[in-house]
């Protein structure tokens, strides 16, 4: 009997027949996420309704030594939800209840399957004037559980911080099925920050089943500006100038020349041809003093050779500006069979240099590239159109990715700003940490998941001396693992 034949009836007894997917077509579509990778077939997919069911599934998996993968909406682009070998996938679409909203304590409690945007809509409908801030580009689809797993960022993390800065406590099912609570609603927690450890661990330390998070009051006013510059370095210098002046915009997004041209064909903003870079600047806060802040931002932009500065005058104008930013990924994708979205950071003042470096690396390989950046925190997203029917091009993109990451690390940056490591950057993690540091992290992983059953073969470099998880590198050209 295959593992599937053994497990499926037991899972069905635990959860009910309709909560266990095992037909070929149903399993087939859990091999991917929004990354460029495709994984292996899975044993089955379960749809638990509550924490107890998750714990039962994890215990059963432990008894049969079967790996588990907790999955949100599959919008991650690092391949973190892509299965590698027989595994049980836990799909959280039935655990999507918002359990409590406490405006007086400024917190909310929910299950991991709640969609980020649905939470915001729920909070807004309650009318308390509160919101949950982290806004990854995938917010209309991605789940809070997935956001926690990947420590998602977003355009507003410049001022408000990434997911980790908003999570107060978690309920987690550990690899042996034990249910534990870490952190909590109260402001200070003595001892180790276990919540911080779990946020961003990409499901490799356990399965999060309940989340307590901070909610914040909505700002009184929000103003959006567009500033155009002759080139990326002028824009990047303006960004540094704004930050150095002590102004903290809610968002500070940069588009390079090629990105503007591409986007303008879809969302007509009227980016002029002679502009080499655009900054979308959002300021929020009290209405009082906003005018002064706007003027200062304009002064700084002008001091850095801004060609033009516009303040959105209507909701429609604001919406169009943001749409031009949010649509970028899709627009890039519609011009080629697919698009490879990269994620890295550099110190803010090196942004222009980094973008020039990315263009150089791609040009050398005959690859197109357009660049977006959360400029305020030096988080760069090169988008590279790829035709994967063209194996040479796919291989070139993989190489370019590695080189770009190496360049960022050399500049004192990081291999990921907000998308996590997954399977995509396993090798590149070795660019950031030496063997001792990696061994330290793996000791933590083994302490919580000794048998390596939680989302295995992710994050850590696969070649080299990493014991039972040495399986080889994933690559865009479909290279087989050793």
């Amino acid at each position, binding site marked *: 009997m295959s593992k599937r034949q053994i497990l499926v009836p037991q899972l069905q007894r635990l959860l009910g027949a309709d909560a266990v997917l095992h037909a070929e077509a149903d399993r087939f579509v859990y091999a991917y996420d929004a990354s460029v990778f495709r994984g292996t077939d899975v044993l089955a997919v379960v749809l638990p309704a509550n924490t107890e069911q998750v714990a039962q599934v994890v215990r059963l998996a432990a008894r049969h030594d079967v790996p588990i993968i907790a999955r949100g909406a599959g*919008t991650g682009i690092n391949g973190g939800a892509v299965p590698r070998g027989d595994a049980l996938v836990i799909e959280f679409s039935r655990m999507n209840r918002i359990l409590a909203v406490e405006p007086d304590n400024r917190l909310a409690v929910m299950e991991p399957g709640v969609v980020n945007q649905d939470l915001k809509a729920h909070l807004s409908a309650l009318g308390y004037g509160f919101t949950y801030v982290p806004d990854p580009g995938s917010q209309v689809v991605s789940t809070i559980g997935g956001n926690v797993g990947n420590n998602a960022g977003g355009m507003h993390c410049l001022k408000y911080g990434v997911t980790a800065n908003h999570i107060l406590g978690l309920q987690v099912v550990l690899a042996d099925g034990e249910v534990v609570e870490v952190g909590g609603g109260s402001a200070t927690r003595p001892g180790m920050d276990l919540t911080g450890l779990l946020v961003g661990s990409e499901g490799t330390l356990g399965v999060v089943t309940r989340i307590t998070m901070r909610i914040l009051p909505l700002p009184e006013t929000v103003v959006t500006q567009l500033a155009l510059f002759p080139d990326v370095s002028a824009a990047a210098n303006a960004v540094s100038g704004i930050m150095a002046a002590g102004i903290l915009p809610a968002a500070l997004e940069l588009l390079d020349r090629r990105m503007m041209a591409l986007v303008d064909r879809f969302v007509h903003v009227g980016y002029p041809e002679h502009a080499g870079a655009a900054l979308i600047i959002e300021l929020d806060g009290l209405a009082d003093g906003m005018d002064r802040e706007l003027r200062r931002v304009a002064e700084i932009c002008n001091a850095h050779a801004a060609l033009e500065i516009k303040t959105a005058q209507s909701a429609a104008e604001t919406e169009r500006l943001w749409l031009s930013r949010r649509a970028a990924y899709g627009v890039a994708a519609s011009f080629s069979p697919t698009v490879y979205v990269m994620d890295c950071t550099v110190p803010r003042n090196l942004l222009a240099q980094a973008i020039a470096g990315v263009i150089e690396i791609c040009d050398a390989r005959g690859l197109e590239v357009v660049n977006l950046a959360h400029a305020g925190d030096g988080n760069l997203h090169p988008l590279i159109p790829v035709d994967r029917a063209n194996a040479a091009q796919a291989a070139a993109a993989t190489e370019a990715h590695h080189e770009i990451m190496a360049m960022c690390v050399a500049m004192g940056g990081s291999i990921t700003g907000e998308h996590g490591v997954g*399977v995509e950057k396993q090798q590149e993690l070795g660019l950031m940490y030496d063997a001792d540091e990696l061994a330290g992290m793996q000791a933590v992983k083994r302490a919580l998941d000794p048998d390596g059953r939680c989302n295995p073969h992710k994050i850590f470099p696969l070649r080299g001396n990493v014991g039972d998880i040495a399986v080889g590198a994933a690559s865009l050209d479909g290279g087989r693992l050793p």
Partner: protein
Amino acid sequence: MTAIDLLLPAEPKAPGTSHLAQAWRNATSHCIKCGFCLPVCPTYSVLGVEAASPRGRLDLMDAVAQGRLALGTVAGRVGQCLGCLACETACPAGIRYGQMFEALQCDMGTQRRGWRRWRARLLLDGVLARPRVLRAVVLALRVYQRSGLQRLLRSSGLLRLLGLAGREGRLPPLPRPLAWRAEVEFGAPPGTDATTTGGAQRAALFTGCVMDAAFGAVHAATAHVLAANGVQCALPAGQRCCGALHAHAGETASARRLARANIAAFETVGDAPVVLNSAGCGAFMKRYGTLLADDPAWAPRAAALAARVRDVSEFLAVRTLVPPTRAVALRVAYDDPCHLVHAQGISREPRDLLRAIPGLTLVELPESTWCCGSAGSYSLQHPELAGDVLARKMRHLAAARVDVVATGNPGCLLQLALGISRQGLDVDVRHPIELLAQAYP
């Protein structure tokens, strides 16, 4: 040990001659798996499984096109799709889900054998494509309406498929088929003069199959509104069912036959715009060019006709509406037909028409762009899923506290009426043009 493969194989393996393989090869870009289509998909939100999402279905269809999965393996999940195309509206990469979906339907149609094929053809070719048979069915329904021969008629799958049984209470009463034509004057509209209005505006009305047989009141209302706006309306003879249901069922040859008949019929009125009040027919007729693209004799004629097709709300939107004068004091919710909002990108125009009516309060219905679950014979094949989708719509409708829900497609009119009678709501179902007609004395 384990391998991470390419999302798409290095060599695109879609060499087959199936419709699906062709559609795959014709697509300029492929799904990037971003998932932006998930939150708008009714079947995904009910079932919560990837294979019932647009992204999942596209992946399954891609795999069939490439020969990685068998058609039979994916038929169940893809078959649960409503075809509402909300996913196309949401897709930032412009993926044409509908083209893959239709291609798969064609392949399944070709594979359908024996009595299932026979049954499908009986309905499509034997009833819908034959105005007289269809009218007979509707006449029988009128008898039903008046005499309550419920058991006899409810036992007929045909009538359930037309969707009339049990819903008539909330719908405009069924007029005698074609009786509406007697009430409408075709030709120069009263009170207008071609020489003084700067040239008469002309339009040709498409009557369709179910609309013509069961919703004559909507046609009468359309003609009335056009006349009140100085538009001279022609009713070309020889027009037939648009063929959409045939194409969706994979009976492409029948669909093409009907399309040719309609093209010929509307060529008799020159280049006058072809005005429709059925979103489904409009969406399909706007694509006649594609349907007949491989037929050199008809392709240019088909493209020319497609370019003339206008939903009535679209047709009126580009003119200055003669202000309606009679108050219609109702709270009205507008529900977007999928074939209008997603397939034709029309959502503002019908709302503007309703807003122009004095005394009418337009209420925005949450998730108005979500499918109501009608989708042709869908509710017969997936009663439970269709029921869940409809129930969700009804929850919003109940909360909106309106007198009327307006929508511009026969299938939706019927489906909403069904939902309302199931839930015991006190809401009437009308085509927006009927409400507008009331406002023109």
